């Protein structure tokens, strides 16, 4: 069975500090990977997606970057956090671009102070 794991579960960071959030998918080779962001009380916005190692497409510009260093790993990062980065970050995977079903991780709650 496939599993998706996000880390950390929660982070409290200072404005201007760096950030790295991780996501790994086990049990599925070459998944499509996604990062979503949910502002407190807000809707989900797709940030990035990746269909293969080393290839990442940006959907929304939020002064964040993403990388896919390995087939099963997706990293979200920034060198300088803003207050507006606070929220809930969700990683998701799907079988391929034409598959309509997304499987979500449990998410990372980020508080920027």
């Amino acid at each position, binding site marked *: 069975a496939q599993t998706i794991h996000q880390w950390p579960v929660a982070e409290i960071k200072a404005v201007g500090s760096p950030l790295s959030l991780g996501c790994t998918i086990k049990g599925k080779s070459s998944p499509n990977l996604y990062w979503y962001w949910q502002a407190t009380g807000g*809707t*989900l*916005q797709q940030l990035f997606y990746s269909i293969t190692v080393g290839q990442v497409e940006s959907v929304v510009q939020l002064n964040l970057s993403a990388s896919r260093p390995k087939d099963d790993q997706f990293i979200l990062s920034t060198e300088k956090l803003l207050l507006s980065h606070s929220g809930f970050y969700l990683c998701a995977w799907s079988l391929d*671009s*034409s598959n309509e*079903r997304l499987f*979500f991780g449990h998410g990372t*709650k980020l508080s920027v102070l």
Partner: protein
Amino acid sequence: AQSVTQPDARVTVSEGASLQLRCKYSYSGTPYLFWYVQYPRQGLQLLLKYYSGDPVVQGVNGFEAEFIKSNSSFHLRKASVHWSDSAVYFCAVRGWWAGAKLTFGGGTRLTVRP
């Protein structure tokens, strides 16, 4: 551009009552429509999806949704809610082609009173 509107940010119902969560979408062409549920401190889980065929689709845990093209709506329903249904529900739309972006509505927080 595609968009999804969930006009009710919060809905409160009593256990055993019927439920309808509203969803209106804007999309030119044939949409893929979804309902996802988010339980506290968890990621989203797919409840049901619709692309074609019978406009009433059945999902997990007794949920169903009806696609009404003339009204651009995809409302979620349940005949009798349980306290464990308390969660945030998201409606979403995407195109049918590979790589189409999934757009979510703002979500509806459902509280079921015991």
